[in-house]
């Protein structure tokens, strides 16, 4: 029986609904077993996530996931980091290159110089390895979105509010440059 559960799901409702039910169910079942087990932390991972196009819908999907899985994030995520932000960092993006054969991007990408999936795998493995000690440091370590990151989209509402407050804050989402340069409404 696991000490840590990595819960992977795609952004559609059948995945989200069922994974939520199962996460809840696993904890209940575990509670009812008359054996010693410690608490089971869960890392929800939004997998096969494609935000290259339809980025507004991608943002809505992330909102949805954050809302549904917030209780599981709060078990290990520092309170100053919102589950919504963590959802954006714990995704596994869809990379068409790897849909053709089984491959290990963590080996492959270092050869090809590409950097995509392995960044997210690295972050996930760092979280696993940390036993949730120093999560903030781990997240701060990757906190500056580089050119290799796909867009980190906040919800449209948040984006508006945040831009009003501090136009430069937009940079932390690695928005396309044309978006960041747009004038404030």
């Amino acid at each position, binding site marked *: *029986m*696991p*000490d*840590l*559960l*990595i*819960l*992977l*799901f*795609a952004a559609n409702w*059948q*995945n989200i609904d*069922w*994974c939520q039910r*199962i996460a809840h169910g*696993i904890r209940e*079942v*575990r*509670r*009812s*077993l*008359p*054996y*010693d*087990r*410690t*608490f089971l*932390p869960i890392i929800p*991972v939004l*997998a*096969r996530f494609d935000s290259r196009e339809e980025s507004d819908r991608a943002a809505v999907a992330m909102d949805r996931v954050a809302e549904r899985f917030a209780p599981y994030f*709060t*078990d*290990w*995520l*520092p*309170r*100053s980091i919102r589950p919504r932000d963590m959802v954006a960092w714990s995704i*596994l993006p869809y990379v068409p290159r*790897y849909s053709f*054969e*089984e*491959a*290990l*991007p*963590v*080996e492959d990408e270092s050869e090809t110089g590409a950097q995509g*999936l*392995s960044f997210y*795998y*690295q972050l*996930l*493995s760092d979280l*696993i*390895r940390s*036993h*949730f*000690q120093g*999560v*903030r440091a781990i997240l701060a370590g990757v906190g500056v979105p580089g050119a290799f990151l796909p867009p980190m989209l906040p919800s449209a509402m948040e984006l508006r509010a945040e831009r009003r407050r501090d136009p430069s804050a937009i940079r932390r989402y690695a928005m396309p440059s044309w978006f960041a340069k747009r004038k404030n409404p």
Partner: protein
Amino acid sequence: MDYEHHVFISYAHGDLWTPWVRDIFVPRLRAYLELEVGRLNIFVSDQIQPGSNWENFLKRKIARSMIMVALISASYFTREWCRREMAMMMEREKYLGMDGQGDNYGLLIPVRIGGGDSFPDLISRVQFHDFEDFTYLGLPAGTEIALRFEQRLKMLAKTVAQMLQHVPAFCDDWQNFAGEDLRPQLAPKVAGYFNAATAHRLIITSAYPRVSSDKASGSVITFYSFKGGIGRSMALANVAVLLARAGKRVLCIDWDLEAPGLGRYFRASPRHAPELIIAGPDRQGGLLDILESSKPDNTALWQAYLLARPIADGVQVDFIGSGEDAPDYSSRLAEFNWENFFAKSARRSSYRGFTERVESSL
């Protein structure tokens, strides 16, 4: 003679609870208690090393403690000493007429740290302080759960402080309480049962890489997804490689028997240099063969199906496949009787015994 300790903490020692109790629970409880009552002396039952006279030593320690906080997990009532520790305190409560008088008046506080609802009626007379959601070592500072833990501790400390006020004066007689084993009073449900159906659901749809850590027994990490095709196996394989590179010993087991495929990530593809080809026994087979065997918790059997995928110099990921390469795999899987398997392992050594043997033997 007088009291020596304010609080006696009783729990089932072992790899699972000792680090949590010592490093997290006791120091934090002490901090909150000292806010309530000032400096105090806490005795934790694991401070006693089994030796020539430990029975008497333990009895004396309990007799000279004002109250007892019993950290109850599923294994608590399976340990004779835990049962007797609790029995001694209950005997004293009875002697003083302090039993069954409500939460803040008594000498024994049950705190639940695991095991859910599997406890005997004996204990259900009082309300538990529930700490089940806070029992992981990682309980990280600054999180929502840590905040709830602190609140719960504060409440517990208040109760303990209140109880300390009602504690009667010390009496030498208490050392003479026998601490009769509670076993005959325990309801049968605590004797151990296993629900095959639920466990089956828990394990077979997931795939585990086992990651050994500082903990002696390692950690089991399950990658689960409700539907296929979203990259679960790929995530597992890649994370396993990264963990191995970071110096962990990693074993991946393909528990997705119905749709296996994890092995494909570790097999050599034409791109790979010859030194990256999997090393291991030439035989076919894997997890299904292990489960089918009459002794699935046999260490040698597991090792026979162990493959090693080199990652870099001196770094490898160990791997046990489903056994899918055997031509009759599908029909054997279809015929495999899970109910029977779990019933058998429950009879022999319990299913948990089985997984723990696997964890410790690899």
